[in-house]
């Protein structure tokens, strides 16, 4: 099983911390977990990246078709809508309980030039921006309680060893990763749109992704490891201007260039961030 499972494995800490109250000022965002490299030596990860797609266990395949379903009255917004707002519910279950241990919402706004997200019970969100040529020109972290935005320019992102791909950003998951790490195990429908169900298991972690190719978006992701499961389901999708939930007005926040944070030692917020490893931290440390 390939990278996709490694990334899911990285979510374990996220699931746990997601049930805790939102982070306090200056404590970073808490639980915005890691990705592929979690806990594994470098050479091992490198091998993963090149690993061809693996197979999924047969039992995983049967689950899919019934697991994906749109909420009643769900409708997709017009395909031509330029700015779309999505809302997912997230539930964490332990020990197979019907009632989730905790639940919250996760929001995304997607337009031609900007993808923005917000975690409902957290303090933070983020946005990626691209220009008319398609080049990614900015990344922002938002701290809504403190009303602060940290801006990264492409050079900052490069300095901390990262690059971004717009398709992946706008689609939440990397569509090409599905076929590499999972197998197509079923088909379903969500709000009238065909959905592919991809699933598999690796290292005791079962994963299932309901993928809507027509909207280039997952409608459901379920990850199960042992007693614990985390489930993310699309609950609503609207033209942004008509959505009952509104985008935070982060453009009015105090904006700080990422490169300046190390020198903002007289500001208590940044002093705490530096000490906590918060946002700026280790953006891509090795």
């Amino acid at each position: 099983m390939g990278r996709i499972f490694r990334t899911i494995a990285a979510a374990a800490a996220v699931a746990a911390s997601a049930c805790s109250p939102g982070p306090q000022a200056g404590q970073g965002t808490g639980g915005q977990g890691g990705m592929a490299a979690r806990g594994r030596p470098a050479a091992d990860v490198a091998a993963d990246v090149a690993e061809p797609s693996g197979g999924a266990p047969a039992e995983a395949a049967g689950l899919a078709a019934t697991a994906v379903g749109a909420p009643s009255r769900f409708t997709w917004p017009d395909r031509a809508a330029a700015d779309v707002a999505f809302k997912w519910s997230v539930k964490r279950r332990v020990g197979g309980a019907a009632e989730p241990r905790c639940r919250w919402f996760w929001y995304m706004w997607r337009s031609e030039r900007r993808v923005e997200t917000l975690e409902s019970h957290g303090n933070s969100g983020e946005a990626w921006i691209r220009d008319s040529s398609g080049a990614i020109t900015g990344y922002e972290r938002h701290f809504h309680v403190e009303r602060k935005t940290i801006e990264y320019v492409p050079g900052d992102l490069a300095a901390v060893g990262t690059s971004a791909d717009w398709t992946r950003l706008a689609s939440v998951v990397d569509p090409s990763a599905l076929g590499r790490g999972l197998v197509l195990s079923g088909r379903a429908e969500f709000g009238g749109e065909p959905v592919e169900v991809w699933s598999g298991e690796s290292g005791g972690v079962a994963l299932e992704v309901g993928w809507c190719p027509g909207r280039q978006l997952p409608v459901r992701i379920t990850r199960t490891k042992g007693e614990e499961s985390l489930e993310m389901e699309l609950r609503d999708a609207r033209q942004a201007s008509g959505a009952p939930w509104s985008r935070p007005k982060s453009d009015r926040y105090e904006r700080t260039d990422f490169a300046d944070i190390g020198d903002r030692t007289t500001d208590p917020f940044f002093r705490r961030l530096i000490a906590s490893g918060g946002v700026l931290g280790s953006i891509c440390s090795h």
Partner: protein
Amino acid sequence: MIRTPFRAAVHASCAAALLAIAAAPAARAQDQPIAVPRAESRDTWFADGQRAVRDARKLKPNVRKAKNVILFVGDGMGISTVTAARILEAQRRQTPASGEENQLSFETFPYVALSKTYQANQQTSDSAPTMTAMVTGVKTEEGVLSIDQSVVHNDHTSANAGNRLKTILEMCEEKGMSTGVVSTARITHATPAACYAHTPARDWESDKDVATFSPAAAAAGFPDIARQLVEFDVGDGLEVAFGGGRSKFLPSAAADPEDDGRTGERQDGRNLTTEWTDRFGEGSSFVFDRDGFDAIDPADATHVLGLFERSHMEYEADRAGDAGGEPSLTEMTEKAVRILQKNRKGFFLHVESGRIDHAHHAGNAYRALTDAIELANAVRKAAELTNPADTLIIVTADHSHVFTIAGYPTRGNPILGKVRGNLDGGVVNPNFDTDLLGLPYTTLGYQNGPGYTGASNAQAAGIKAFPHAPSSYTGIASGRPDLTAVDTKLPGFMQEAAVPLGSETHAGEDVAIYATGPSAHLFQGVVEQNVIFHVMADALRLKFGAGK
């Protein structure tokens, strides 16, 4: 890299991408030591030593009055940064050399002293008081620009004519000389700003910043740093200002001329770039990109404002990818010198390599060293364009960083690589040196910062992936990451750090002062950082009245 609640199925991590590249066989070959460029023997070492003494004996102090002064500051360029940069410069040549024997341009200057960088209330300092010390001759407090230590940080009511410090740039303007500031950071950033602005908070770069950090100062109309640059009224104003920070000069209603969809940030509606050209009239200009920069004819230009990015300019390592194109530090320095040289009374120029500091804060030695090498290029160009008989050139740093060169790598070992030492018998170890866990380690590293590899609440021990946003670390429980197959010389590699901090920090040890030209010989021994001003003043024969 959107952060889903899962963090699942989300995109290839930068670490994975990095490692995939690193696993290529070619990367391993590049880890081999680089040859020494000449045959060395006891004779060559001995002769070199003798020559150095002969050269030193020939040195004659230049006691003439200086016509021009150029003050180069590598922001955060501690001595370990200079050493690593000199090695990297040689190792990057078309015909690579081992590098230890190399000298950066300013390392050939005849006079060197050490500068103590502590300030009035800081053991380890930031750029504001350190640059204030260098350009006013007086140490002051953290975050303060060119006001003495009686001021209260961030309190505009405590700033007054009595505690304002006159800067060397202002003194030169008063003498009718030309003046300029050049930086790869925002031109309103602490280091260049200390030359022309007086403010109790370095963060007050635009009127929006003043309102954010001190509504009282904003209500009182305390001028922001960008405004102080454009309204600078000593002499005939600055002749040259090249750098970043365009958004500090443009109103929020104005579209940025380079970055599609972006605007200025000023809330007062003022467009300081047009105010610049309105004020200075014929011969003045505002430029924001490579084309505009290239179009400046130094022969005609009188007052030039060049702001090439909304915020800081690109790292030198990334400059080629900039949308509008932007000049290098060397090109800006050359253009500035050519413009300022027209004044027969001479000039004062400050040039800052502002992003060595930023790359170190990010834990990225590749960019810090690349910028340091570019600073050396700019110094070489300035030296070529001026006469050492009448021009004092000083190269120094405001403070250091917690950046180290460790282990016992063999001669010519790639400075960005992993340590490979010598075995008994003097032969080069075919394998990397290893720590007590059996793992290789890099020559370069940081004492603290984001490169810490311990487990956090968000990611396990080992290599981290962007964007890593922990709220806590639980420490290193199971050793270090295995770097055997990792190409640590790649631009995105972040060196390991011993102490987990979100941003690597400045360091408190002394930095070097390299000097040539009139009065350069006055740099002797270990000096307080504010002595730099007094040497420049001596070179220019500045006289101080009661107002000082």
